[in-house]
């Protein structure tokens, strides 16, 4: 009798079908040393690990340094209008819930011109990942104050230093209704960055990640101390939070316990921004309503069926 090998029916596709190169398009034109490179690499790694089909993945961006991101991904992408990354992405997700949608936005794009869309995107809570590349400056136009620039930032618009306190994007997001995922990370800790993006990808709902990003050209002096000071970062640790291995944890000196299911506590922790750079998961709630689910309920209905439905509705009012 012939004996069968246990895997003779194994018709699954090979495990690693897409490589890193399959997600890399042209060479990124950000400045050398820019944190954008790190984020790009981390996102490409995630795509590879999850084997996301490039034809089922969309990156939508607005305008700014960060918003060049879709050009560097060999997937679908939309380099859109200033501040309009969220509405375009929401539109894509609304009618194509099968796609993996990533929103790439910067501090100007999201917190300034696009602030209105940001608010409603958080409320819509569609299943997407939103990465806020926050370098606290308008870099593409050569140094103007952005809504997140620290108080006193000297720039072309404020030669004697900015006079208004910056927006805290974490606190602002946590204050919005139906918020479901808020996390913060920094680009110069690649392990934490990757773990955060992964956690965001796995979240069901809109995952909002603020990435504190270095700008080596315009904000070098502002970031240098934070990057090289081991005391400058505080890690939010919890079993439901961002998972780091032992070696990864060892590289941080300050770790506090924070339960991401407690929104009141999350708002308290968000205030820490004034003293330190807290990184980790602030808040997560997967039970919130999702607008994309609502939008998907009538997908797949044929045009004829729609016409019939409308006719039926109209006939009710026929005299």
């Amino acid at each position, binding site marked *: 009798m012939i004996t069968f090998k246990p895997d003779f029916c194994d018709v699954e596709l090979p495990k690693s079908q897409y490589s890193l190169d399959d997600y890399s398009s042209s060479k990124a034109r950000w400045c050398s040393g*820019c944190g954008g*490179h790190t984020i790009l690499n981390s996102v490409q790694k995630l795509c590879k690990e999850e084997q996301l089909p490039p034809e089922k993945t969309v990156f939508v961006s607005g305008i700014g340094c960060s918003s060049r991101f879709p050009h560097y991904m060999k997937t679908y992408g939309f380099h859109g209008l200033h501040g309009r990354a969220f509405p375009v992405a929401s539109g894509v997700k609304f009618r194509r819930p099968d796609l993996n949608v990533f929103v790439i936005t910067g501090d100007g794009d999201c917190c300034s011109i696009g602030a209105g869309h940001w608010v409603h995107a958080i409320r819509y809570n569609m299943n997407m990942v939103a990465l806020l590349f926050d370098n606290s400056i308008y870099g593409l136009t050569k140094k103007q104050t952005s809504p997140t620039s620290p108080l006193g930032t000297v720039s072309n618009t404020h030669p004697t230093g900015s006079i208004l306190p910056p927006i805290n994007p974490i606190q602002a997001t946590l204050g919005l209704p139906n918020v479901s995922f808020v996390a913060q990370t920094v680009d110069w800790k690649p392990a934490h960055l990757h773990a955060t993006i992964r956690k965001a990808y796995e979240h069901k709902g809109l995952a909002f990640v603020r990435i504190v990003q270095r700008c080596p050209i315009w904000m070098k002096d502002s970031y240098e101390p934070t990057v090289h000071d081991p005391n400058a970062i505080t890690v939010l640790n919890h079993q439901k939070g961002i998972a780091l291995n032992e070696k990864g944890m060892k590289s941080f000196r300050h770790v506090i316990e924070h339960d991401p299911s407690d929104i009141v506590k999350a708002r308290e922790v968000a205030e820490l921004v004034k003293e330190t750079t807290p990184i980790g998961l602030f808040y997560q709630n997967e039970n919130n309503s999702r607008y994309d689910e609502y939008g998907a309920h009538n997908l797949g209905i044929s045009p004829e069926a729609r016409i019939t439905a409308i006719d039926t509705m109209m006939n009710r009012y026929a005299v």
Partner: protein
Amino acid sequence: MKPKEDITTPELSMDWFVDDPASETERKAFWRTVRHFYRTGEKANDVTGKGMTSALAKLITREKLAYPFSPDGDHKTTIDLTTDAHMRLLNHLLSAHQKQNRKRFKSQLAELINGLKELLKVDEVDEAKVSGLKETFGFAEELIAFDKLVEVIPEKKHKDLTKEQADRLQSVVSVLVSGLSGSTDQLATVIVPKEIKSKLITGELFDELLLVEGERDVFDQAYGLVCDEIHAFAELMKSERIGNLEISGDYQEDIHDEYFEHFTWHRLLEEELALFRPVLLIVDHNYLFKHLSSFSRLLASNLPVNVIVVNDGHISAPNQLVSWEDASHQFRQELALIVMAHRNVYLLQVAMNDPQYLYNGLKEGIQSVCPTIYHIMTADNPDLNAGAHLQSEAVVAGRYFPAIKYDPNKTDKQFGKFDLFQNIQPQNLWPKLKLKVKTSDQAESEIDVAFTYADYKAMFGAKVEELMVIPSAQYSEDLIALADYLTLKEKHLYGKIPFIWLIDDRNQLHRAAVPNVWVVSCQERVDFWSHLQNIAGLHDTSEKVKSERMVGKLPLLTTSDQNTNQPAYEKMVAQLEKKSEARIAKIKEESMFKASQRVVSALLRLGQSSDGIESLIRSGETGINSSEPETVLEQKVSVQERQTSDKEEKVNEEEVPVTSKEAWVESEDCTSCNDCVDKYGHIFTYNDEKQAFIKDASKGSYEELVKAAENCPAGCIHPGLPSNPNEANMEALLKRAEKFN
């Protein structure tokens, strides 16, 4: 089996009586004729090697003759070395082994069919029971669910079959039944081109096989035939798999339906393909080269087909006019290389000298799942002075027809796929032998000789006449052995005449000059052999290649032997691996020892020299080349600080912490920010994970390394110590580098 390189030279002693040298004038005149002979091959009749033969040929026979050969070792069937010995070996192999195979296959099918019918029968009985119950309790039809009742009646019952399952079983059974009844008793199909059939197959052979006379192009014909047969076979095997899954209750429609819908023969397992009725083609090499394109197409199809190419192109083949090695200096087409160019093909190129090797090779090839080519040099030659077996040994030893086995499935290691160990002394260009001679003063001595292609050629009576025997009185320094002649550089060749050793019927040795035509053909042969050595890694002496080659050197165990002698086989492989590991470990240990010696000597020099820090830096140059950062063996290093104020050397020993001497990057922590690779691309590069590492620190300055470390946001660049201590501002640079090391 004894490896060929261990061949023992028989205790043969030959006479070599040398006359006194002739006079100078005589010699001059004679050597003019020799040189003329070398260029043109023309000579006087009284100096031919007529009646002589190659002296070295006698040295290459093994002690024990391999014939008569008993394929199964039980002496029930014995095969003598005749012209068609290879055909009889093949016939025996197919009859004995395929018979068992077919029998096993049929009983397997029959057993499965019975099992499946049993399943179907159970189902039918259930149906019958329901209708039986209905008849009996028909009055209560509205109250009783008969189909449910059947389930609770305690009966021996296998399981329920759904309609789809029953249909599937029915179709499986019908395929299996037709497969079983349709299978013929013929053990294999043999296709022979019509025009050369009488030449290739003589006598009563292959009576249990289906012998087909090929009409036009047998390769195309075989392609069509194998395609048809293997598709039918795949259908059968598919049914068998489904049947087995059904019997064991493992058939899952959601997985298997889709899988079996696209089932082709490529999905068959090795042991399944082993049951496929072999298709063999028998052709000769002339026929093959006339139909090379269709032959290549057949190989590229990867169908399990066996092609036997019979080569009778001995030197003295009757068709002298087209013999490749005549004055036109053509290159012989090497079938082995053409076949290997297809990469997926099992190749066996053998002469008839070792029937056991051939038999095992045939067996292995027929069981193999890839296309298989056997290139066989036939034995026997009426023109040959020596025996047929000796000729078969010589054809291999002279590198005219090297024994090659190339099995693409044997191992995934490149060099393990080759087996050239059937050739005598495979690591040498020509086999080296010792010629024992008795000289005129009754003294015995030994001469180192090499068995070349010319020696093989000189075994043929017709060919040996082409040589010019040099009388011993005319010996000169210009007369050099052919093997040595072939290795000489062109500028040293002038005036030299190559010779080989001949022996006459009175056991007297002679030196015979070889014409240029022979030299060219020897060169052509040795070039091919050298190419084979290269592709089989025989010239590479690195340990990795050696250990890969060990696989090829394993004694000949066929697949079936491996199954029966599995523990012994595994033990042998384990031993070989252990041996190779031990060798590699030894080499590592030696290099570690050398490296630590270098470090110690560097430190000692440091202790004696005056320029403390610089010599520490320089010692880095003599250190080990390692990709990992190398830390100095000692925990602390004593460093003499240079005191330059007064020229007196003032020793001030200070303890400094150990740092890596070489620059390195903690790639894991790299943020891929492009800073180092953009600015210092000559030093840094990315790995597959797009994280930086140092490709070559020597390409840049120490200053660049320090700058890169300073700019790195992750702080993962460590500049180490400078390789060039004379760089400008070194003191300042070292200070800047300190916090990154």
